[in-house]
């Protein structure tokens, strides 16, 4: 097997809500992989090389504009990687960077990379935090959210990522959260998404590595996951 290469985009600024936990966990799951951290001022490794996974985490609203600017020269390359089936994971508002645009309540519209068919509406005066219980590939998904924006699907070719069972979906017209195109997975669920969703992580690592990979601390992670699901399902637990 070739050496697995994971590129983390801009971890110094795209780690707003513990998203870096995903990478620290992947490092334990893939001890032999190479992890490349590309800073905001650097040239992305994927520009000239093939990679097995590209990860990007949540960021501030100003950083979103900076990231769009930095990634714009590589739009074609990113489109090609998504079309070729390279696994991507974007957590929190990183998803919006790959969408068409973000319209801010101030009246400003930020044009984004336009690689996935979503458009976001942002309102800095109205933020919501909450939990989510959903399903993907017959496994339950749990997650945390804290966001100023809501995304709408504007293309018919974007497929939903997670079917929502409890909690707020991506917008009030749909029953799903996040989008998937080939092996690109984007979700507003933020923080240590891969740590809290071991069955998704197993599925995802198979896409990354081409074969089954044992999870790090598998029994402990699955135990914590089961405990959280039990907790989320309690009727008195308010999941906004």
């Amino acid at each position, binding site marked *: 097997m070739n050496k697995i290469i994971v590129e983390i985009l801009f971890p*110094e*600024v795209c*780690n*707003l*809500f*513990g*998203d*870096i*936990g995903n990478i*620290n*966990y992947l490092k*334990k799951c893939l001890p032999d992989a190479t992890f490349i951290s590309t*800073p*905001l*001022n650097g040239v992305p490794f994927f520009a000239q090389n093939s990679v097995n996974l590209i990860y990007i985490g949540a960021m*501030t*609203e*100003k950083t979103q504009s*900076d990231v769009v600017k930095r990634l714009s020269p590589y739009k074609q390359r990113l489109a090609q990687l998504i079309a070729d089936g390279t696994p991507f994971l974007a957590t929190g508002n990183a998803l919006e960077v790959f969408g068409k645009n973000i319209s801010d309540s101030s009246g400003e519209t930020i044009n984004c990379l336009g690689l996935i068919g979503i458009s976001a509406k942002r309102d*800095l005066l109205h*933020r919501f*935090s909450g*939990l989510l219980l959903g399903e993907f590939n017959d496994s339950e998904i749990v997650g*945390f959210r*804290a966001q*100023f924006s809501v995304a709408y699907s504007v293309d018919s070719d974007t497929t939903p990522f997670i079917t929502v069972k409890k909690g707020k979906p991506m917008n009030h017209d749909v029953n799903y959260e996040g989008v998937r195109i080939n092996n690109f997975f984007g979700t507003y669920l*933020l*923080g*240590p998404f891969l*740590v*809290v969703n071991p069955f998704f992580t197993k599925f995802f690592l198979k896409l990354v590595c081409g074969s089954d990979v044992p999870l*790090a*601390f598998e029994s*402990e*992670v699955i*135990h*914590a996951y089961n*405990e*959280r699901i039990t*907790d*989320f399902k309690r009727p*008195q*637990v*308010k*999941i906004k």
Partner: protein
Amino acid sequence: MSKLKFYFSVIAAKTAAKLLRLLHMNATNFPGQVGLVLCPNLLSYFKMPQTVIAVTGTNGKTTVSNMSADILRKNGFPDIVSNSYGGNVDTGIASVLLTNCRLDGSFNSNSAFFEVDERSAPHIFPFIKPDYIVCTNLQRDSMKRNAHTDFIFNILNSYIPEKSTLILNSDDLISSRLGSDKNKKVFFGLEKLPDEIPSDDSIICDIVNCPICGSALNFSLKHYNHIGRAVCPSCGFTNPKPNFDGVNVDRESHALTVLHDDSKEIYTLPADRITDIYNVLAAVTLTRTVGLSQSQVSSALNQTKIVKSRFDSFKIGSTDVIISLAKGQNPVACSGVCNFIRHENGQKAVIMILEDFYDAKRTSENLAWTYETDFEFLKGDDISQIVVGGKRCYDYLVRLLIAGIDKSKIFCCVNETDTVSLLKPQLFNKLIIIYDLFNVKSLDAIKSQLGSALERN
């Protein structure tokens, strides 16, 4: 008409406050809530005392407020109106003003002092324009409450009155940029201390790129997280020069040396963690700027004691016990406590009860913050045991494993009060208990078990 509403709300709030007192009920924000419902622009009608001071910031604002108000009370501001026992949002401040004012909205006192929650600036500063505003720092806080530092900076900066003199932390490249050219600014800072082990391995650094040109900043010193000294290699952006600069700490005599206008001033430090030193620097800079002399401030600080609820230490048998508050959901504050633990000497055990008491009841706690907290600081061989108590203990187990801590050292229990029974006293001579503010009840139960658990040792 509005003035009438104001009089009416003063009477209603004073009546509500009296009633609550008669019923022995403690509802610090309630009179203010009543007042603000009756008269929404209530805060604009007060005839504020001559000197108005506000303290805001992510961490340390309560300590700095209490310490500064105490120094001022002892030095010519005896009847200062303050919210030291009340809420720090608009309703809390309205409560204090309503219960202390005369019917026409004026005050007996010559000064007012408020701790202000940084998100409440839009509800307070348009009406009450402080003569002095202290901002201790702006750092990552609870994601649910504060989103991120950019967001809080913009809220605060949009509402800072032009007339306010700002007391700012020069070592914080975020909050030191608050205010406009119209504001007078006085900065406090801290040099690298001779015995300091700089902490440059934190997960969180809330400013990495130059806010002017976007280039990566070069840090020459990090006291903790992003608090330190940096320069932009492209445009030269750097920390402002401190007007009150902490240059030395004598830990034996609890003395802090501050350089001000080329002369050395010595102040007593009630406690000497890096964040304690910054709190004293902020209080000294404020009270000196308000007009007190060095000797007035230093003699008042001599009598100050750190509040026991936040930090306590004692001995049981041959075991040293340290109890420290570690605000849950606040990754910077909690990482500071982890840093403190790693630098404590001795063979240590740690009990952690950090879960949010209210979240555990009403919802399921979002533990994303634990992935930006430096639990990696606890992986040294000088920590024999980490005992985690609480409903989410299995999440903490996973987090600690990812931090590189050996599984054989980690012990979990769902009931916080069972943590003591999992201790192995033969493995350590120092026990450090870290707890969230709302877990005081469990902490008391834990403390009551320590005698029998540790005395044999």
